[in-house]
């Protein structure tokens, strides 16, 4: 790959990308707060809910998805369990492992949060896709 020089409009696209992402993160943090959830707890519930149905979510996998240390994930799950949002079960296939399931309470919170996020994402998507395409365009 040859080293390319970035043009003024490359920088503009990069700055716009980050501005769009900041607005989204800001929106998301406020929306989660309104439901009484710190951002990381919301992301943990979403990661569990969005995990493919045929695969069990474990604390190790959750740590991977959230990019946090395993002991941080253990603490996080402890708080979610205390708040009646997540239940832990022994994995029938491997008794040394615990799998994580959302409670009905978590499902309801997540449904409300995801509906408002979906709306926000749809508003942001055309702009975001446009910027990404613009930044990809120079590859060929």
């Amino acid at each position: 790959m040859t080293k390319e020089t970035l043009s003024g409009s490359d920088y503009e696209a990069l700055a716009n990308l980050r501005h769009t992402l900041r607005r989204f993160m800001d929106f998301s943090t406020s929306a989660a707060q309104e439901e009484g959830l710190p951002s990381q707890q919301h992301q943990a519930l979403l990661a569990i809910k969005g995990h493919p149905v045929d695969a069990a979510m474990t604390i190790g996998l959750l740590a991977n998805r959230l990019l946090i240390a395993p002991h941080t994930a253990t603490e996080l799950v402890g708080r979610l369990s205390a708040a009646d949002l997540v239940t832990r079960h022994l994995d029938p296939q491997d008794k040394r492992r615990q799998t994580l399931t959302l409670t009905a309470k978590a499902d309801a919170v997540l449904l409300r949060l995801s509906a408002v996020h979906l709306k926000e994402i749809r508003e942001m998507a055309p702009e975001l896709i446009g910027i990404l395409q613009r930044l990809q365009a120079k590859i060929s």
Partner: protein
Amino acid sequence: MTTKTHEDALSPGDYEALADLRYALRRFTEFSNAEVSNLGMTPQQHQALLAIKGLPPEKEMTIGMLAERLLIAPHSATELVNRLSDAGYIERLSSKDDGRRQIVRLMDKADGILAKLSGAHLHEIREMAPELMQALRILQDRRKLEKIAWMA
């Protein structure tokens, strides 16, 4: 009020796409923070320099605009500009159009660091883009599909 059930129902595929989207964004943020701290800057300082650099050529960056672009309070933007100015990344000067207005401009040191950082970021964005666009399209298409079902 429109019927709520129609709007509220999310499929497992929606949740998966939402989770994938956030995972991709987390990885990107993590990558960016690591690159930036390797060069001895904070993510916010980097974002301030990028916001100034990414301004269309005919525009001038004021502290108020910088606060808006970074979604921070005006006094936080003032402090940020002070630190960047002390570190020799930016300079403050009066606007040519309106002498009472203070604007900020990048210095050569900032241009050098941005060129380095932005090349790496561009590469990472291109790696992430297909996954991100796929998640966005899944979340957008659902509306189209719904509309068709709604009208049928």
